[in-house]
């Protein structure tokens, strides 16, 4: 295991692995998303109180959940990079940020669209919504900090510290609904054990979530590869691989 | 650790092995190596931009290197960073003086970080460096050369064994240079080590004085 870990952490190997995995991820992600969309928009029965408006949740909830999980992945990668001085881990962290920011934006957008019919307002200063907004600012801050260093190694370590410190916000977002009485929906799907919505509504949600995860994996492969290219531009193995391919 | 510590006697004091360093697109240091023993002065020479400052910063632990190792008394630098730094006095291109503090206060605070120090000792050093009259002026009021002398005073007072000096005689007048050569000679006599970047060689022809040419 450890050995495999070390092997993977060598840029050339990782570069090829990412290249090989990417198509699998992307295609399966596409399939799952289409399937889930069909299930969510057509098969699932309309909600007895929310009517059809609730269907937007099939985008909203997965995106929102991803926005948090991507950050966790990013922080872990950053921590690994700092502790074991593995450059690849930093590359992964760097690749995560924009994707996570994207998910966050989607969650915010769909959320506020969702809020119009539900709460009668686009925007409400409610703990979860606010903390999700902070999440977005964290991503932006991370990227801005990265961009302000012109030396990659320094950018890596500086932004890693930020990423690790920022993890504090994740539980706040996740449990804000529980801690403060919030307008926002209490966790239903992420509550393991028995989901409090019936299956016909639930399964497209899970499928969509899985699809998003795979999509994330696919994008990550791409971004990590380009990161590796950028960082190793004057390494010998790269010129060889480029020649061969 | 212990095993290492015992073998340390055999080891050289400072051992720099095959340091490689990239700066942006440029492969600056290509396997630079040297050893430094007690009582030795190594002057790194080379044209502008060849990498003297970078090398010094690497050895001081201020610049992460691409590959190679720096061994201090038989231990890797990253393993014993704090002990190493307690034996180290570093003078950069800039003088690290607070413009709003007087010259005396500047030295007082920066030296007291390392060891307790009396103000008589400080004033004695000022007198020795012939800047006694500036001791109580705010650093911003000092002239370029006076600032440099104060910075040199910090090196003297730190009582470190290893000096790393980046073009120490910048802005010094001829009297100041002679004075500084004395200080270096004395440090070497008492078993100190000096690593400098220089365009103008000092203590030429003395025993234990070597130069390292970078290309």
């Amino acid at each position, binding site marked *: 295991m450890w050995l495999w870990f070390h092997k993977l952490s060598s840029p050339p190997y990782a570069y090829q692995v990412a290249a090989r995995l990417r198509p699998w991820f992307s295609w399966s992600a596409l399939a799952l998303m289409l399937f889930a969309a069909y299930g969510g928009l057509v098969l699932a029965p309309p909600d007895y109180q929310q009517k059809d408006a609730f269907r937007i949740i099939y985008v909203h909830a997965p995106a929102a959940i991803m926005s948090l999980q991507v950050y966790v992945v990013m922080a872990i990668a950053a921590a690994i990079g*700092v502790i074991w001085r593995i450059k690849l881990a930093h590359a992964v962290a760097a690749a995560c940020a924009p994707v996570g920011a994207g998910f966050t934006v989607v969650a915010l957008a769909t959320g506020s669209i969702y809020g119009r019919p539900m709460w009668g307002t686009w925007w409400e200063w409610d*703990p979860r919504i*606010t*903390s999700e907004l*902070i999440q977005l*600012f*964290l991503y*932006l*801050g991370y990227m*801005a*900090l990265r961009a*302000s*260093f012109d*030396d990659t190694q*320094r950018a890596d*370590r*500086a932004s890693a*510290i*930020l990423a*690790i*410190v*920022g993890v*504090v*916000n994740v539980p*706040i977002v996740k449990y804000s609904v529980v801690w403060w009485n919030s307008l926002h929906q209490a966790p239903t799907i992420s509550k393991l054990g028995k989901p409090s919505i019936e299956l016909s509504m639930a399964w497209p949600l899970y499928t969509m979530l899985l699809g998003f995860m795979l999509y994330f994996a696919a994008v990550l492969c791409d971004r990590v590869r380009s990161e590796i290219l950028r960082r190793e531009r004057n390494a010998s193995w790269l010129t060889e691989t480029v020649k061969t391919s | 650790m212990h095993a290492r510590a015992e073998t340390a006697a055999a080891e050289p004091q400072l051992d720099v092995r095959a340091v490689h360093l990239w700066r942006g697109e440029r492969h600056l240091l290509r396997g630079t190596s040297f050893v430094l023993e007690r009582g030795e002065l190594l002057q790194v020479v080379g044209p502008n931009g060849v990498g003297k400052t970078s090398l010094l*910063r690497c050895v*001081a*632990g*201020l*610049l*992460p290197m691409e590959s190679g190792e720096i061994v201090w008394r038989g231990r890797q630098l990253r393993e014993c*960073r*704090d*002990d*190493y*730094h*307690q*034996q*180290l006095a*570093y003078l*950069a291109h*800039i*003088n*690290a*003086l*607070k*413009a*709003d*503090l007087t010259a005396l*206060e500047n030295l007082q*605070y*920066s030296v*007291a*970080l*390392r*060891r*307790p120090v009396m103000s008589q000792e400080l004033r004695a050093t000022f007198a020795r460096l012939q800047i006694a009259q500036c001791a109580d002026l705010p650093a911003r009021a000092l002239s370029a050369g006076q600032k440099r002398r104060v910075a040199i005073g*910090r090196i003297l007072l730190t009582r470190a064994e290893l000096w790393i000096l980046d073009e120490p005689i910048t802005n010094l007048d001829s009297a100041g240079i002679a004075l500084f050569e004395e200080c270096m000679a004395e440090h070497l006599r008492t078993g100190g080590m000096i690593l400098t970047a220089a365009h103008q060689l000092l203590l030429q022809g003395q025993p234990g004085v070597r130069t390292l040419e970078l290309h």
Partner: protein
Amino acid sequence: MQASGLSTLVRLVIARDLRLAVRHWDHVVQPLIFFAIITTLFPLAISPALDELRRIAPGVVWVAAMLASLLALESLFRPDVEDGTMEQWVLSGQPLSLLLLAKVVTHWLLTGLPLVLMSPLVGTALGMPQSAWPVLMATLALGTGSLSMLGGVGAALTVSVRRGSVLLALLVLPLEMPVLIFGARAVDLAMHGEAVTGPLNLLAAVLLLFVSLGPFAMAAAMRVSVES
């Protein structure tokens, strides 16, 4: 270590920064006046009906305090880094986290504490009832404390970056939002004569967290900022 003891170090750093502050005593009062100005800006910008003011008073005071201590943060590490002093500290072989912690503490004494002491005045100007003073000061004390710590980490990260001040704000403000929320909420509760132990404990916990973890994050960040 052959060096002077830890407590000596701390005293040394604090003494140095206090002296620098005394050299420019005018600078010490500036965050205060800034604080006052912001709090006076609001009544001007908003319709000056007192009852309305009273309702938003806690928020205004808190936001003003945050921004004031944020502006002061700018000068926490930058001067030392730019003139090479910080480089010397990193090379001093002394525990950097301790040195930086001492620096932050001094910074709080110079910028945070005065805000706390001054807050009742401002509060009154905004029509805050006297009964709310203790809570206002307590929350501000805890709050500004954790702002200083958190700000210290941010400052250490952004100090070697051009125009870091805005980046600093960008990094620090979002993370400070919870503090702001709890602080303002507590004061609000106090103004309506309700129990405030909940938010107060939370603020204390946050401060504790920052003080215990902050120094190491700061030291790590500073090493990155210095080397180049």
